[in-house]
């Protein structure tokens, strides 16, 4: 199925195994934290503090501090929630889909992508929590024996599925990420000279030894956990889409939503991986690990996914016209493509369906600066997509007398900026203290003959 020759060498520069250990562990064993790290951490913390102010404002006063109204009852909170969840699909899509498909080029990127997943899903989880207004009653969503009947949750509600799916996704992604790091923690444990670091990484490594039997069980468990988590990528965002599609609001009530959301999530996730890896390879000088070929492979995936997005947008418009429903027609032909929020619709189309098509040109694919800019544009486009879906549909529904515009308040903006700060801070801590590339997996692909090919006996 997979031919290693197709991609050539995955790690450039004729690295020895020791070089790989050294290159990956040096930044996190260094005594001095680089100044760019402190500056970025300071900025991220400032953003986070502003977000904490937004949280405080919402908790003490209520969701009245937001720009929501009776018509647009879902605003930035749900937009940003879906946006973050989408980005949070990167790790699993990248790491696990490519693991299951035996795509070995994932190796130098998967760890960072998984870290992104963890922090993005945590950032996403803050929005439903804060949207409750009375956050201290948040435990009501869990099915526990209570004095209200006992009245159980509505287990047929997409909103409850959402809670379950996202907490499962976070748990499973975290465990998969952690298991992958155990051998690397052991490597750091054996390499560090500091007694404190040795003790800390020994605790983290769970006493991993790397024996033949250990590796066999480890590989088997990792593949099983990965294989089980892969369908979650589909289910989580399908369920998020069902939150919308199960509502009878024009523009939402459509069967295209689950696949459309899943593709969009993978799209924004891959774009965010690209953004992050371009920065990391530059700052840490990992050009030999995250090669131009890696970036090229990701841009190719993005080109393809962008085409799917384009087709989805076109088919939405076509179905609105074909349905002959005046309400659907109104949403697409009076309220999205033209009208008050037309700028967001066209931003979505441009950034998601048109700009990534530039990747057809090899010159553009190989220009790292342009690739970086496009990867950011894609995430802006994906943000606008959620804005279009949420705000245009809700602001003008069935009764013209209920029509109401929407614009966010400072509190909403603060919470959003705060989650971005949280995400950046999380990534910074990850880069400083955890092995940002899977050392043992890199060693496994370093030599062509150590890669298991299809004709060897299969242990998986």
């Amino acid at each position, binding site marked *: 199925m997979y031919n290693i020759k197709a991609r050539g060498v995955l790690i450039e520069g004729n690295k*020895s*195994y*020791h070089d790989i*250990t050294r290159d990956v562990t040096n930044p996190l064993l260094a005594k001095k934290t680089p100044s760019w790290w402190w500056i970025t951490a300071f900025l991220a913390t400032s953003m986070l503090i502003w977000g904490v102010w937004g949280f405080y404002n919402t908790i003490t006063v209520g969701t009245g501090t937001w720009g929501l109204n009776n018509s647009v009852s879902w605003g930035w909170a749900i937009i940003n929630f879906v946006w973050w969840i989408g980005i949070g699909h990167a790790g699993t899509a990248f790491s696990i889909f490519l693991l299951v498909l035996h795509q070995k080029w994932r190796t130098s990127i998967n760890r960072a992508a998984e870290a992104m997943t963890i922090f993005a899903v945590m950032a996403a989880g803050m929005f439903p929590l804060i949207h409750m207004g009375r956050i201290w009653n948040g435990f009501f969503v869990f*099915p526990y024996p209570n004095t209200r009947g*006992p*009245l*159980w949750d*509505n*287990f*047929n509600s997409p909103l*409850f*599925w959402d809670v*379950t*799916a996202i907490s*499962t996704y976070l*748990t*499973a992604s975290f*465990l*998969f990420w952690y*298991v992958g790091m155990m*051998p690397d923690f*052991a*490597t750091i444990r*054996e*390499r560090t000279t500091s007694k404190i670091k040795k003790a800390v990484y*020994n*605790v*983290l490594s*769970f*006493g991993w*030894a*790397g*024996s*033949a039997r250990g*590796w*066999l*069980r*480890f*590989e*088997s*468990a990792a593949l*099983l*956990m990965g294989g*089980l*988590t892969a*369908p*979650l990528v589909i*289910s989580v965002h399908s*369920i998020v889409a069902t939150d919308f599609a199960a509502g009878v609001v024009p523009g939402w009530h459509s069967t295209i939503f689950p696949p459309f959301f899943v593709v969009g999530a993978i799209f924004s996730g891959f774009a965010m991986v690209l953004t992050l890896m371009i920065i990391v390879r530059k700052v840490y000088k990992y050009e030999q690990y995250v090669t131009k070929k890696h970036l090229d492979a990701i841009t190719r995936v993005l080109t393809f996914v962008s085409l799917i997005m384009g087709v989805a947008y076109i088919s939405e418009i076509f179905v609105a016209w074909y349905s002959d429903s005046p309400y659907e027609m109104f949403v697409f032909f009076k309220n999205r493509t033209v009208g008050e929020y037309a700028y967001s619709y066209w931003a979505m189309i441009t950034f998601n369906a048109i700009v990534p098509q530039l990747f057809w040109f090899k010159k553009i694919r190989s220009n790292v600066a342009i690739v970086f800019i496009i990867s950011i544009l894609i995430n802006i486009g994906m943000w606008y997509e959620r804005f279009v879906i949420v705000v245009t549909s809700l602001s003008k529904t069935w009764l013209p007398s209920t029509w109401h515009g929407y614009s966010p308040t400072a509190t909403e903006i603060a919470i959003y900026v705060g989650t971005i700060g949280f995400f950046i801070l999380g990534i910074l801590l990850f880069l400083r203290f955890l092995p940002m590339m899977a050392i*043992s*997996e890199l*060693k*496994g692909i370093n*030599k062509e*003959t*150590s890669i298991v090919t299809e004709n*060897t*006996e299969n*242990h998986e």
Partner: protein
Amino acid sequence: MNNQNQILGVFDDPDVVTDAVKELVKHDVKIKDVFSPFPLEHVWDLLKLKTRMPYATFIYGALGTASVFAFLYWTSVTDYPLTFGGKPHNSLSFVVLMFVLTILSGVVFTLATLLIREKMWPGKNNPLPDHRSMDDKFVIVIEQGRDMDDNDMNKIDELLKQNGAVEVNRSNV
């Protein structure tokens, strides 16, 4: 830890160590373990190692599905049946939660099985025969059996060297 002598054959190439294992197995030398910085899948074959992990995961998943269905049935049909929009109490949409939680139980218990079977816990002190096996060396460990005298041990040393070992050491870890 034990007091028995062990031979450590240190290699620096995954292919050479695999061939050496093949050669040792041919000479009926009992290999205790092979420590490596990354998985060596051919060595598992040569040492005839097998894992039943997939069966365990299947059982966890099946138990997860069954117990989630039992819980949903109990809460929504037996304990407090509430009608939502005229839908049946025992609803087909239970499938969504069953699917998600099957995955959760599979993942969590597979990990637990790995940790239990490998006897791993946070802070476990697990001295390695040769700590370089975490970096760039591959170490074959052969334990001195009761019926092995120094002569036999030296023969194994020789065999390891012939098959590309860069170092042959003794250890009692």
